């Protein structure tokens, strides 16, 4: 472990969820180790990996939790979502059923995760153009309706993988750092009490979507 890796300003826990076989583990390995395994088996138990990125000159360490799609309702469920500030909800653009199940995963998040958790809908396997079963526009519209960020990725050819993590971590960072401005350690604030932060999701939403289009 390099010393650079040990120091960070923020530690964010992000969970990967979505049906079995949509490529969660390969997204994780692509992002954290730049590896991809075409013959990967179903994940056993929960896997953890970390990677640090820079946002606004701050080091943000992402601690990413990944588990097999079938692992929910297990002993680990509560612990899996506890403390998570971001979720990548992954589906397979070539398997419509995995997209239909997104709603179920959203429900699971509502039941177990923090209400402010930042959710990004990720259509993975975008390299399978010829087999596409979920239209980009359809998924994007769904994401907008539900206040989610949206991106299409390919863990196989690396398209947008870093960007997906970068975007969700930036979004979390914006929310969390804004909260910190609200309660500065010195207490020399002139803001009135009881100020609630303004939800910045819409801006970030369009931001991430725009970036995605420009690729």
């Amino acid at each position, binding site marked *: *472990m390099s010393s650079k890796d*040990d*120091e960070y300003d*923020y*530690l*964010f826990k992000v969970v990967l969820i979505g049906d079995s076989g949509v490529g969660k583990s390969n997204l994780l390995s692509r992002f954290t180790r730049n590896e991809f395994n075409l013959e990967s088996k*179903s994940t*056993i*138990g*929960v*896997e*953890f990996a*970390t990677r640090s990125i820079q946002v606004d000159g701050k080091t943000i360490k992402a*601690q990413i939790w990944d*588990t*097999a799609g*079938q*692992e929910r309702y*297990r*002993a*680990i469920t*509560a*612990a899996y979502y*506890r*403390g*998570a*500030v971001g979720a990548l909800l992954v589906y397979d653009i070539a398997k419509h059923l995995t997209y239909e199940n997104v709603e179920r995963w959203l429900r699971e998040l509502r039941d177990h995760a*923090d*209400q*402010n958790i930042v959710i990004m809908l990720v259509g993975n396997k975008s390299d399978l153009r010829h087999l596409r079963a979920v239209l980009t526009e359809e998924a994007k519209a769904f994401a907008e309706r539900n206040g989610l960020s949206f991106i299409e990725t390919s863990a196989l050819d690396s398209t947008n993988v870093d960007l997906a993590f970068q975007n969700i971590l930036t979004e*979390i960072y914006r*929310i*969390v750092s804004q*909260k910190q401005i*609200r*309660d500065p350690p010195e*207490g020399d*604030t002139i*803001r009135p*009490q*009881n*100020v609630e932060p303004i939800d910045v999701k819409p801006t970030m939403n369009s931001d991430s979507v725009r970036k995605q289009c420009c690729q």
Partner: protein
Amino acid sequence: MHACTTYYHQGEDLCEDLQPFFKKLANEIAVMRVETNKVEKELENSHGLVSDTEITSALCNSADKKSPKLEGYLFKRTSNAFKTWNRRWFYLFDNKLVYRRRSGDEHETVMEDDLRICTVKPVTDGERRFCFEIVSPSKNHILQADSEDMFQLWIEALQKGIGAAIQKIQSIDIQKNTEINKSENSGFDNNNKTKSKRAWEQIIKLPGNNVCADCKAHRPQWASINLGIVLCIDCSGVHRSLGVHHSKVRSLTLDDWEPEVVKLMTELGNTVVNKIYEAKVPESIQKASDQCPGTIREDWIRKKYVEKLFVMDLSELLQSDSLSDGLCLNSNKDKWRVKKGAKANEVLKNQAESESDCDENSSCDINQQTEEEDNNYGAEETIENLHSNLLLYKAAESYNLIVMCQAFALGAEKSWTNEQDKNRQPLHAAVISGSVLPCVYLLLNGARLNVQDQDGKTPLHLATSEGHTAQVCLFLKYRADQHVKDNEDKVPLTLAEEKEHADIVTLLRLGRLNEEMRDNETTGDEMFNDVVRDFSRLAYSNPEKLQRQKYDV
């Protein structure tokens, strides 16, 4: 020109046609406005009502000075990075602070289990008004009340609660005893009892645990966790002076109790342990008593546990029948074996449980994780082999805590290596038993955790390949080194992945993540402890959940 006028004319007609529609619309909007105003008012009123009832219920309850109760909505700041505020229904009862999402919700979360170890203080520098902080040894919670009044009420109630709770323990034992008597006599069911199933109450319930193991003083509030006994404060002081290799002293009421240690305590207890450590007390020896001078107390305890003067030695044991429960000798007296299961206590326990409400099912479940083979005994050994070390080994292997206790009393070596059995130590044998308790018992008595047998396997290796999740959890909790390689160059994680034990894989990986994070952050540790706690709770409440099929992923 003509076309133009017709066009405008038609336009005017169209507008006139629309006029009634617009009027209707305006009317509807007006009606709606009135209605919303009404609803708003109603809501305000009902809100007022709600806070009124909250305050009144609070008031009438705090008048009852003995056990302050208070419930109502508070805002709670989440502990994750967002630090958001959630409105939750909190209530205070029985030394606990508990909350739910809504007042009628079934599911409740315990915020603080034991208010005696907490303090409350107002938070004035926060960004919100009416905030107060509850500080416990492990966590801080920030809560916000709706108004100044409620803020005062909560702080007062919590402080009173803490005060009352501390006073309450002084008298709890007498209460407990009388309660048991009551239920014996009349079958009188006390609702409060089901609510208060705290660790120490389970322990104190055990027959013989109502008095100090050494001087018989009433209301013992201390325990020696490696010996499995409860003690009065004076004897606990002497035990402490013996050093932790002889006796690990904990407070029943003030310390945190891990579920597996509680379980072990309830399997042993004063009666069982004294049967062994006071098997033959000569007349000449002055036993310690409630009011005896310190020197006698010290002398007695030292002789009993350090010099082990009153323990029967092996040859005497073989002639007497005192071990007959656990150790079975063949009729010709040259073969012996250890009976499986620590059931000698069961009879006593059943008596206690029929009187009270301890959940017996859970205790049996762990007892029998892997047992129930046709043969209920460990392998036979010839009598010449009978040595305290081997006795401990065999007892651990067959999950017989009482024989283990006997072996400890006989001075068995916790880290003795059994050359007959792959150079394994008792802890390896305990893993084979499939149960957590013999492992806990050995660990508390100083068995080494990372020893390797002749195949290079540590107890963690064995527990992993046997698929004993609860044991893996225990070893990780005791900070086992999971990077030790066996002779095939495998670490436990490799074994777990090969065998597809999902929960064990998770636990081991989590342990690694924790090691990685521990260097610079405390949060990693907290998270690890959280998950491990989840697992150990499961292991004790729903062990079947951990017994997943191999390909059940």
